[in-house]
């Protein structure tokens, strides 16, 4: 799933490891989510949203909205 995680992290000057520690996951998890190789569960997506104090849809791009835009 497309997302703005890398951008949000860069704005705060956090490394992947910094973000991983804040989310209590592995650095590899952060990398997999950032690169769109892994879609986080809803609880983890909420943790991400709460950490950045943003609504989920401002971090993760809805696949259905993305495809409707393409049409």
């Amino acid at each position, binding site marked *: 799933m497309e997302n703005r995680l890398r951008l949000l992290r860069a704005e705060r000057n956090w490394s992947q490891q910094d973000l991983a520690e804040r989310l*209590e*996951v*592995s650095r*590899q*998890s952060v990398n*997999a989510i950032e690169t769109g*190789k*892994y879609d*986080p*569960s809803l609880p983890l997506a909420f943790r991400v949203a709460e950490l950045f104090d943003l609504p989920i849809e401002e971090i993760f791009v809805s696949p259905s909205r993305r495809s409707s835009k393409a049409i």
Partner: protein
Amino acid sequence: MLRTSAWIRYNWRVVWLTLLYAGFLISAVYGFKHHLVPQPLMYPVAILPALPIIGIFVAIGKYLVEEEDEYVRMLMVRQVLWASGFALSLATVWGFLDSFDLVGHADGYYIVIAWFFGLGIGGLVNKFTLGDGGC
């Protein structure tokens, strides 16, 4: 695989179970070879080496329950699926070849060896498709 605390616990369990397996197997083989196993104990002694192997399956299940990192857990689930698919496919193909007398009969426990080999394949697939979870 990433070294989470659940992964470290899993590894220790596997190490102990492997040592137990070696001990049970050597004892059972020695006992049967030298006719030391009394008749009523033959079945239990023959099954002894299987128990630690079953324990490893339990350890994998416990690991999946205990692993808190959902991405790392998914890597292991993918490995287990690859292992199961590989071992069951191999058993099916071998079974039919055996039925038509095209290959020699293989002992049932070889399926377990194929399953563990499949775990390795799953690790490689994770490595090549996700870049993580190499075996």
